[in-house]
């Protein structure tokens, strides 16, 4: 048996780095691309949105048409099982000035306070990730402070076509502009895939400064210039300090719970409700407290039943579904539909559609 004897334990000085002591050192949620509640593949993407992988927003204006998917192509021997794939299906080899394609994650300010941004003690941030792309050349990774409209960019090079490469980039701490201590978006990590001249016509801004759009993505290659182009990314980690540690793998349930704060797909079709002024109403308790009161959409066909003295009656044809939500509960009230026969008051109803989408995204 080993024995460790010490005379004194003291705090480390000098390169001491603040850690997020509440849990994860990785500021990025779902950086291993393992959670995809919305869909594992979405085709014909031409605009902004959360399309497949949880927490990964795609900003897209004019820079081609894409299929985004959760893919099993991953770097060998690194422990990853999934990646985010961008497959260009309609090319744009001649970008207009404002065109862009950017993968990004938006981060709440209250989760970033330990970085001490806006003080003399501001922490550096190190971003590491694995990338695999058909197109080689210069790419831009950017941090954008939405509270203070400041940004910093760094270039990295994809050296070999269709080969996994690990990239590590360290961004200096910013002594100007504190992050708001609230649940709004404060910092965005961006990976550019295409950038029109509005974003490339200046000089790349590699230190924190107020935003000059022309300096954000100078040198960015255009991954949208051919339908042969694919772009994969996984293992995104952003942590305090100047060194990249090994990727922090979280248990699947922990990762999923973190994603639920921003988006939850309810696949339970057997909810129990009651009847309010002749229409079905359901209260759905959410699995975690979401970032804000969420938006909801009813993506499936309604299948709602109740009972009367002779058996089951059904409710069909609602023309609208209204929602009243709090960060931890959603209330569904259907309207405009009809019952197949008289129902019995007080016995309630069951149903509501599968695929109820509940979003509190940034």
């Amino acid at each position, binding site marked *: 048996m080993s024995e460790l004897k010490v005379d004194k334990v003291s705090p480390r000085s000098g390169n001491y780095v603040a850690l997020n002591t509440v849990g994860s050192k990785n500021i990025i949620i779902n950086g291993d691309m393992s959670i995809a509640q919305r869909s594992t593949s979405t085709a014909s993407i031409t*605009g902004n949105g959360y399309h497949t992988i949880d927490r990964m927003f795609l900003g897209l204006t004019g820079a081609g048409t894409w299929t985004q998917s959760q893919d099993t192509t991953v770097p060998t021997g690194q422990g990853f099982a999934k990646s985010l794939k961008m497959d260009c299906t309609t090319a744009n080899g001649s970008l207009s000035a404002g065109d862009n394609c950017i993968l990004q994650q938006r981060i709440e300010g209250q989760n970033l306070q330990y970085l001490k941004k806006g003080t003399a003690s501001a922490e550096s941030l190190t971003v590491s990730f694995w990338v695999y792309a058909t197109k080689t050349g210069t790419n831009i990774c950017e941090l954008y402070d939405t509270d203070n409209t400041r940004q910093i960019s760094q270039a990295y090079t994809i050296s070999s076509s269709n080969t996994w490469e690990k990239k590590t980039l360290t961004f200096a701490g910013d002594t100007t502009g504190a992050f708001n201590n*609230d*649940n*709004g978006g404060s910092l965005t990590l961006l990976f550019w895939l295409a950038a029109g001249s509005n974003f490339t016509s200046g000089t790349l801004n590699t230190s924190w400064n107020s935003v000059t759009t022309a300096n954000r993505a100078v040198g960015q290659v255009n991954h949208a210039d051919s339908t042969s182009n694919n772009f994969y990314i996984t293992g995104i980690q952003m942590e305090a300090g100047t060194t990249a540690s090994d990727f922090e793998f979280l248990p699947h349930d922990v990762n999923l719970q973190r994603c639920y704060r921003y988006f939850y797909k309810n696949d339970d079709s057997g909810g129990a409700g009651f009847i309010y002024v002749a229409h079905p109403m359901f209260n759905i308790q959410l699995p975690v407290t979401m*970032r*804000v*009161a*969420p*938006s*909801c*959409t*009813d*993506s499936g066909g309604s299948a709602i039943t109740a009972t009367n003295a002779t058996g089951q009656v059904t409710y069909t044809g609602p023309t*609208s*579904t*209204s*929602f*009243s*939500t*709090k960060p931890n509960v959603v209330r569904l*009230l259907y*309207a405009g539909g009809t019952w197949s026969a008289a129902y019995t008051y007080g016995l309630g109803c069951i149903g509501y559609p599968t695929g109820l989408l509940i*979003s*509190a*995204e*940034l």
Partner: protein
Amino acid sequence: MINSVEKIYFNNEFVSYQMTLNNGKVWGVPLDEANSDYQAIQEWIAEGNTVIDNGGNN
């Protein structure tokens, strides 16, 4: 992206928006200033668009 927005009432109280997107998807949006869809609706209104308001009859 937003095609139309309607106020939703419950017990004659304005409780949420119903937002219809150009792709036909209908979202219920809470009256929470930190909700990004609520923010998008406010921008849409600021651009001169009009919210449908049927009072407490829906």
